[in-house]
């Protein structure tokens, strides 16, 4: 029983990351209809930008908290800029090309980011300063650390901010309109290209923030860190009904729980088989994901 609770706590922590990253996939898909394969690597760039900031500022003693805040901000803004730049350079020129060309471009960008960072870091791991090694909240049979709590709270805050942005602002409304019908949105005077770039900026911002949080929590980062988590986040986005933001958040947490419980009760070796098997089963029964997509397919 205590193990069950521990798995639950661990699963929620993992799920918080997955949700944050999955939202970027979901938003970008909604607006551009592109599976942004590079999204996991944008997350990785965020982790490295935060690492650079922390290394420059130093994260010890009284400087720890301001340095951490600075690292999250720098990481998020860097990836925001990188994401927008990628969209401008490699996606916008292909908007009128076949969809597959866009997808391949995304794969190319993903490989380029990974390989670029690999060359710059000589394929070595980097370790964040152990800044979040604070105490535990509970340390009886079940262990919960302040780091875990901070992480989950920050994720929830970011997701709530995104939700408010998408539902309460003009830009957010325009984004949802664009997701429904690009041509109609254009006719309504929406600057489609600008809006696509804004979407990439926000989606990448979230991924970057998640990257720094990841670095702070897990400490060890590398050029390849975005692949597996990106894949799972993408699975979560599809499972929740891609384009459907609340569905994506829920599915992200669900995948986190599956990852934790499968390691506990089956075997970590079979985690991906279980996740993908679940995905295939859900899609076979509900072709638009658990919660249905919010993207209207024009007949």
């Amino acid at each position, binding site marked *: 029983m205590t193990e069950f609770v521990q798995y639950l706590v661990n699963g929620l922590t993992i799920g918080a990351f997955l949700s944050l990253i999955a939202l970027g996939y979901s938003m970008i*898909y909604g607006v551009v*209809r592109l*599976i942004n394969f590079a999204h996991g690597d944008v997350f990785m760039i965020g982790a490295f930008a935060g690492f650079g900031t922390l290394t420059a500022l130093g994260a010890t003693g009284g400087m720890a908290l301001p340095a951490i805040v600075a690292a999250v901000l720098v990481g998020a803004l860097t990836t925001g800029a990188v994401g927008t730049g990628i969209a401008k350079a*490699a996606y916008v*020129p*292909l908007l009128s*090309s*076949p*969809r*597959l*060309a866009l*997808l*391949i*471009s995304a*794969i*190319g*960008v*993903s*490989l*380029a980011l*990974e*390989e*670029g960072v*690999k*060359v710059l870091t*000589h*394929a070595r791991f980097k370790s964040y300063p152990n800044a979040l090694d604070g105490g535990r909240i509970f340390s009886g049979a079940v262990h919960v650390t302040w780091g875990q709590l901070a992480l989950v709270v920050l994720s929830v805050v970011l997701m709530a901010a995104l939700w408010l942005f998408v539902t309460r602002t003009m830009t957010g409304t325009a984004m949802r309109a664009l997701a429904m019908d690009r041509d109609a949105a254009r006719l309504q005077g929406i600057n489609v290209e600008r809006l696509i770039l804004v979407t990439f900026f926000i989606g990448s911002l979230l991924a970057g923030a998640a990257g720094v949080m990841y670095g702070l929590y897990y400490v060890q980062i590398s050029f390849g860190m975005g692949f597996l988590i990106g*894949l799972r986040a*993408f*699975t979560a986005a*599809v499972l929740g009904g*891609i384009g459907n933001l609340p569905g994506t958040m829920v599915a992200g947490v669900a995948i986190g729980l599956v990852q934790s419980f499968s390691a506990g009760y089956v075997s970590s*070796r*079979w985690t*991906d*088989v279980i*996740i*993908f*098997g679940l*995905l*295939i*089963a859900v*899609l*076979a029964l509900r*072709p638009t994901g658990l919660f249905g997509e919010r993207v209207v*397919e024009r*007949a």
Partner: protein
Amino acid sequence: MRRPAGAEAAVRYGGWPLLVALALAAGQGLDDYALTVAGTILVYAILGLGINIVVGYAGLLDLGFAAFFAIGAYTSGLLMLKLGWGFWPTLPASIAAAAVAGAVIGYPTLRLRSDYLAIVTLGFGEIIRITVVNLEVTGGPNGLTGIPPVSVGGRQIVLPQDFFYLALAFFVAVLAATALLARSRLAYAWRAIRADDTAAEAVGVPARRVKLLAYVLGAMVGAVAGPLNAAQLGTVDPSSFTFLTSLMILLVVIIGGMGSRPGVMIGAVVIVALPEVLRTVQEYRGLFFALLLILIVILRPQGVWPYRPRRLRLPDAAGPAPEPPSAPGTLLEVEGLSRRFGGVTAVDGLSLRADAGQVVSVIGPNGAGKTTAFNCITGMIPPSAGTVVLAGRSVRGLSPHRVAAAGLARTFQSIRLFDGMTVAENVLIGRFARDRGLLRPLSRADLDAVRRCLDFVGLLDAADRPAGGLPYGDRRRLEIARALAAEPRVLLLDEPAAGANPTEKQALMALIARISALGAAVVLIEHDVALVMSISDRVTVLEYGRTIAEGPPAEVQDDPRVIAAYLGVPDDPETDLVTEVLR
């Protein structure tokens, strides 16, 4: 006017024998390293020909194709190591195993859109890879080692040169098989579902079966590469079948050009030889490769050697026209047809009758439920209640392609042609409602029908032009020709006059009259009341899903409720919209 067939074939297919001859010569001249790389290129070319069926022809995105490569390699390797089979008998076994796997992955994904396919196929690829790594029988992470070399006529294939020739033989065999496949009716069906699967299904292509066949046949072709690769390396290493491998295989077709066999060859050379060339840049190898990839896609989004549609060789004169449908009397009988979406009843108790040779029209303001009624009749959406009887046979609840095969053809309000295909090929797809054969070449009857239908609507001269480039009026006529190729008993036309000028409308009216003269029943949805009243035998008026009037044009015209509904009698959908908003 047309070039003789032989000369064209020589131009079109001359490249392959030349290439094979060159390869045979190269096998003598190249050193071991170059031959090993060339052998790998051929392995990837075979994989490329396999995924070309799935992605290139049928347009189904597959990010897990390495699974079939793995299944082929493991099946062959296990049979050789555990059961002591020779190499050759394992080949059909590998192909069969992959075919089963293709059906397993194909079946649950048939209803999914292409973006979902991406993640599902990716997941399938990972499931296969992780499973072989986890199981003991497959050697776990070590994979299979000590696979005996292939022996051909007592000669062991171990040297790179021998292997290169073996791979070349495999490649030529697979190339020939896929070339035959490319000329089958199935290949046309694949290209149609790739362009627009809803429209293809509606004109009689059994879309799900066709998609499933794409997975199965693609998997079978790709599986051939597995045993070949295992024989080349003497080992099956599970790390050879990662997501990255699937990506590389996909890139073979995307770089080359989807659906294009020469493109596959070019793609395989790029994918295998480029990293070899980039060996000297060491750690920058991956980065250079990624940047070149983006560059290629931005410069040539269609691929380096895009597919060019083959000209259909139509007969010079059409054969005798088919017998007109022999059943006069009532061809279409719809009773009490209803369709509800949540709380909204879009169609409420519609009844409709059309006899042979009649033109029956359905009119009504936008949102009256006309197109929904059509979609219920043709099986695109299931009706909530009511019956649909076609020439004495109930077709309610059948899938669209079965309804089409039963003799009901349709056009779409927003024209849905297969844009990547030629005009003649578009008409050819209409033939699937008549003749459901897939794995055989086009018949004389197919080509006759295409010629006759194009002639009928006056598009024969445009036969070899891409459908996407036709002017608007011609696109309408082409859609009608495609419907006629099914030799339908009932033809449903959804707003065929929308956007037409008066001259075009006149021509359209004449065309409809000629169609009904052939003995078919024509059902028309139209906004142009004048046009409807002048050619219809009977008119049904819908408002908010309910029938408010029904009868011969003269009676309907004077019905006060119709006049009320049609205040101002708008003949333009745009103004129609305004009147609706005003009310």
